[in-house]
């Protein structure tokens, strides 16, 4: 495998099974250095398994991992000194304070100064509560402490599994600013999340995983603009007729009703042809109250993962969008 040194993280053909269930099926991730990478996927898609493999908690069945430009396997544990990770829910000794927990964590792995413990408590806004026992922390505070733990060794690559879990809105904004700041000083932040709006605001690059495979990867700008999607809003009672009109402008399967209640339709068409969409509707006496070019991450995510989500045991994503695609005209 050849990987450009500017990559912070790369996986090639990563496979992992739990018994007969295949969790990852040839995952190829390419994460450039100095970006915030949003790692998205429905429940059970393989996000946490990927995190566990990247942090040496699990051994892959096959495939390779490169961290910060060099191959990584579980026996190279010292490579993790340059990486900070929050895998699944944060784990602490409940009878110790937040500060004591971080000191205990600092004793493992890369050498870390005691001063750094207070620095990271500051970064996550927990300095005043650092002396409280973790058993008295709220979920959001534990999450912040988990992020503080990941930042302890001032890592070049930060792997965060659902870091916004349990955070209040102010905490989410603060976390976003912190992660953006880290990327701005050249560090790489790899964030798995199911909060699509949050990822859309945070990430520079997105990878979408479904059924253990990467189904799309690219810069956020490319993904949202390059799809050639125009979203149009009409009166809810005109949605059906608008869809018929638009189905004459583009192939019928390129028209989808995003929300019949709100009157949103999506048309796969180059954004510079948005005027044609508007004109076609106007000529049929349907007047758009909203017109947006570009893609929405949620639309893209649901499009890409819909097939996988229908087989997802918890059915989380089945039926969320309520979208319908126009049938082919005969």
């Amino acid at each position, binding site marked *: 495998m050849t990987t450009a040194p500017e990559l912070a993280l790369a996986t090639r053909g990563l496979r992992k099974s739990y018994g007969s269930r295949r969790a990852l099926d040839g995952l190829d991730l390419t994460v450039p250095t100095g970006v915030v990478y949003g790692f998205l996927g429905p429940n059970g898609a393989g996000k946490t398994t990927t995190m566990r493999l990247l*942090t*040496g*908690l699990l051994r892959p069945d096959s495939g390779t991992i490169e961290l910060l430009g060099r191959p990584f396997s579980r026996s190279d544990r010292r490579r993790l000194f340059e990486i900070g990770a929050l895998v699944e829910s944060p*784990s602490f000794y409940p*009878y*110790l304070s937040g500060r004591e927990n971080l000191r205990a964590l600092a004793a493992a792995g890369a050498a870390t100064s005691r001063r750094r413990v207070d620095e990271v408590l500051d970064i996550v806004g927990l300095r005043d509560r650092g002396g409280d026992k973790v058993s008295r922390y709220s979920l959001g505070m534990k999450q912040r402490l988990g992020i503080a733990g990941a930042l302890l*060794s001032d890592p070049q690559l930060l792997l965060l599994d659902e870091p916004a879990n349990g955070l209040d809105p102010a905490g989410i904004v603060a976390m976003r600013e912190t992660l953006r700041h880290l990327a701005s000083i050249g560090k790489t932040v790899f964030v798995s999340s199911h909060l699509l709006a949050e990822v859309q605001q945070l990430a520079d690059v997105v990878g979408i995983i479904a059924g253990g495979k990467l189904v799309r990867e690219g810069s956020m700008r490319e993904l949202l603009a390059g799809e050639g999607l125009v979203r149009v809003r009409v009166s809810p009672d005109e949605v059906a007729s608008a869809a018929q009109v638009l189905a004459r402008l583009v192939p019928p399967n390129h028209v989808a009703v995003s929300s019949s209640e709100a009157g949103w339709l999506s048309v796969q068409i180059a954004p510079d042809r948005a005027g044609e969409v508007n004109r076609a509707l106007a000529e049929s006496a349907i007047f758009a109250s909203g017109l947006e070019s570009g893609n929405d991450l949620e639309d893209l995510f649901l499009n890409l993962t819909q097939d996988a989500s229908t087989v997802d045991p918890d059915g989380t994503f089945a039926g969320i969008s309520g979208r319908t695609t126009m049938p082919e005209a005969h």
Partner: protein
Amino acid sequence: MRLFVSGLRKLVRRPATYVTYGLLAALLVLIIIAVGATGGRGSSGRSSAAALSIVTFPGAYDAILAFILGLGGLFAVVYGAAVAGSEWTWGTLKTVVARGESRSRYMLATFGAIAVVTAAALIVSFAVGVGAAVVGARLAGVSLDGIGNNDALGRLPEQFLRGYVAIVMEGAIGFAVATLARSQLAGIGAGIALYFGEGFASIFLPDIIKYLPFDLATAALGPSSFGGGGGPAGPAEPLSADFALLLVGVWLVGSLVVAAGFAERAEITG
């Protein structure tokens, strides 16, 4: 070293440390004070004299030590299992592994801290027991003349050391079982079951059971011990204290190798 010191700090702050070993000391004090307060009247004849031996120096030293080293084994199993199991249950092992720490080194450092805390707890329990015995002797009107007996005091360090090694080995058994079970509760439960199960099995299989950890721990203390977990292995030919101590060492090292080896190879999914 920093891992070991950190492990020690964690255990010193851990309520389970005080609950586990505090209970051992509390039981000892309760028994001694009860004996002293009743003056052995709860028993009669030879039984009464035997009961008062725990408040009669210099024999009280041996009795207190035998109590601590005998029952202490059970508490050590529970404590070792609680500490190792919580690393899996709370997910703290996962966190240090993701930081690049060596799994086996972390496990061994954690156990080293357990061993030190256990030593301190046994010394404190013994001191508390001796203090209680003094109070008990006064309550029972027993003379304290033998308290400075040089022979008895001279034997204590070796007896204590032998018993301590055996108790650490029993702690290692709990530690290894909880590591294999990846669970605090399962580890504690399995450790206690092994402790009592071995005692029960020794009735039927004394020649085999005498080589198992809890019987060996008792045998390593020598013939004067009160008996711990499994108790002396019934009618089987007893092992010499020195050979038993050697086998205790084998079990100790074996348990730690199993715990560290399992942690090193385990896939951490929780």
